[in-house]
């Protein structure tokens, strides 16, 4: 903000340079992985090398695509609902202490339920369609959003509250004007946690019972000993999650820039 343009540019360049580091680390990792597999002559069914994995991705690209779309659909739908509910309940809990005290423990409980265990119940209650999958994704993603949002919403600045009260702001208005902007960074860190769980959540949800999706594809590859395809699947899941993550980061940057926090 207040640096001369020159240093600003430099800084930008340096950061761009830094952001290559993880890419380099990943490339090195892949390289060593391949080297290790070659050197120790590891059999591909124990640990396929990256080349084998990428080949598998290429070979199975059509199949992968259909399954990806299914899983992505579930993940996005669930994520959407989770974000909506997370924000709504975050707001409610941040705004209203009784609600917080009453709901918080219940939400914690929903988090602690090992969902896969209850798979048959989910199948019995909600069948094998889209709904139970979305529910599972929601249950996995909802909590981090609402908890981090709430936590930042309840941080109070007494003087700010005072001045707003004097100006005649209702409780809600004062909340909207002072607390919500202040809690947006918290919301975003919750969102980041949530998106990284959404794809995995959708995959797990498919294990309850499904016809299509990366989760199904995965188990089928696994039980028919297609280890390379299994890895390809994992790779795709990682990539999808990262894309979602980056998206959130992008939106955050826009937002934070616009709101321009201290």
């Amino acid at each position, binding site marked *: 903000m207040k640096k001369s343009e020159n240093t600003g540019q430099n800084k930008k360049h340096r950061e761009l340079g830094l952001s290559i580091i993880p890419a380099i680390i990943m490339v090195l990792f892949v390289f060593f992985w391949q080297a290790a597999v070659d050197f120790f002559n590891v059999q591909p*069914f124990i640990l396929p090398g990256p080349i084998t994995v990428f080949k598998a991705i290429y070979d199975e690209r059509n199949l992968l695509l259909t399954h990806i779309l299914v899983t992505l659909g579930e993940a996005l739908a669930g994520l959407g609902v989770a974000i909506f509910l997370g924000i709504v309940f975050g707001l409610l809990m941040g705004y209203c202490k009784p609600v917080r005290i009453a709901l918080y423990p219940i939400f914690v409980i929903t988090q602690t339920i090992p969902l896969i265990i209850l*798979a048959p119940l989910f*199948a019995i209650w909600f069948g094998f369609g889209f709904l139970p999958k979305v529910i599972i994704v929601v249950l996995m993603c909802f909590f981090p959003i609402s908890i981090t949002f709430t936590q930042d919403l309840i941080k109070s600045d007494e003087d700010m509250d005072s001045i707003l009260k004097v100006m005649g702001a209702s409780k809600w208005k004062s909340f909207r004007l002072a607390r919500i902007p202040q809690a947006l960074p918290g919301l975003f860190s919750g969102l980041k946690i949530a998106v990284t769980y959404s794809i995995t959540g959708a995959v797990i949800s498919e294990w309850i*019972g499904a016809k299509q999706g990366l989760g*199904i594809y995965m188990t*089928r590859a696994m039980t028919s000993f297609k280890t390379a395809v299994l890895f390809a699947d994992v790779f795709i899941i990682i990539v999808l999650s990262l894309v979602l993550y980056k998206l959130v980061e992008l939106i955050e940057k826009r937002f934070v820039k616009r709101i321009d926090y201290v």
Partner: protein
Amino acid sequence: TTQPLQEPQPEALKKVTAVLDWTPNTNHTGLYVAKDKGFFKEQGLEVEIIQPSEGTSDTIVASGKAQFGISYQESVTYARAADIPLISIAAVIQHNTSGFASLKEKNILTPKDFEGKVYGGWGSEMEEATIRYLMEQAGADFSKVTIMTTGDADFFQTSATGQIDFAWIFEGWAGIEAKQKGMELNYIDLGKEAPVFDYYTPVIITNETILKEDKALVEAFMKGVKKGYEYAIKNPEEAADILIKEVPEINQELVRESQKFLSDRYQDDAATWGVQKEEVWQRYTDWMFANGFIDKKIDVTKAFTNEFID
């Protein structure tokens, strides 16, 4: 919990759900063939085949959320002992095609050789009891086996890395895969080793309510299934292709080889595909009871029926 009875209309196909035991494989070929070849449609059915969470098919069928499912004789026995009204309506494979496999170099040829070795399984007490029974029968000391729980870990990965020495596999699946991989295995056929273990695995199940209220549905379904398996028996290659077409995610070479192996064994020495014998049921039920897995003897004649086979 069942769907209301409807007069079969030629146009409107009745929607039916069948759950597998887990991932699709050659045990399920008949179902997929029946679906693909229109054998179900001929019966006025539209069958949806679902891959469920492992080991949950029984509960799902018992609840009626799916009308049919794939299970095992042992599960049905468990269920009935717990007053869950499942019933087996066909044996998919006439004899037990599972057994204990190990890498050739481990030299495990008989249950006696289990001594001093590591067994990797999914952690059920049933496995322990089975191994103990086999070893005791062979006069070996069960306490010398190490039982390790390896969950769903891949047999090849765990044995090639020396984590385990032997495991319980389906000959028609992992056994075939070993050949594909060029690995030589020693295989101890469970059913041959002890007749009591020649039980039915897998079986097709439904629940008693459906049986009572919509016998026609079960008849229709089984007609389709039977036709499917009979087709697979006669045309292993086409059947394999159909399975691959329906489930392209699974290992295609494995399916082809496995199908060749299994096609002869679906019916095997039985008069017709799917027949179940009371003797087989009784034998294994007694064994389960004797080993304390069930706390009451079930009436095996109610646990299965051949009514839909003939």
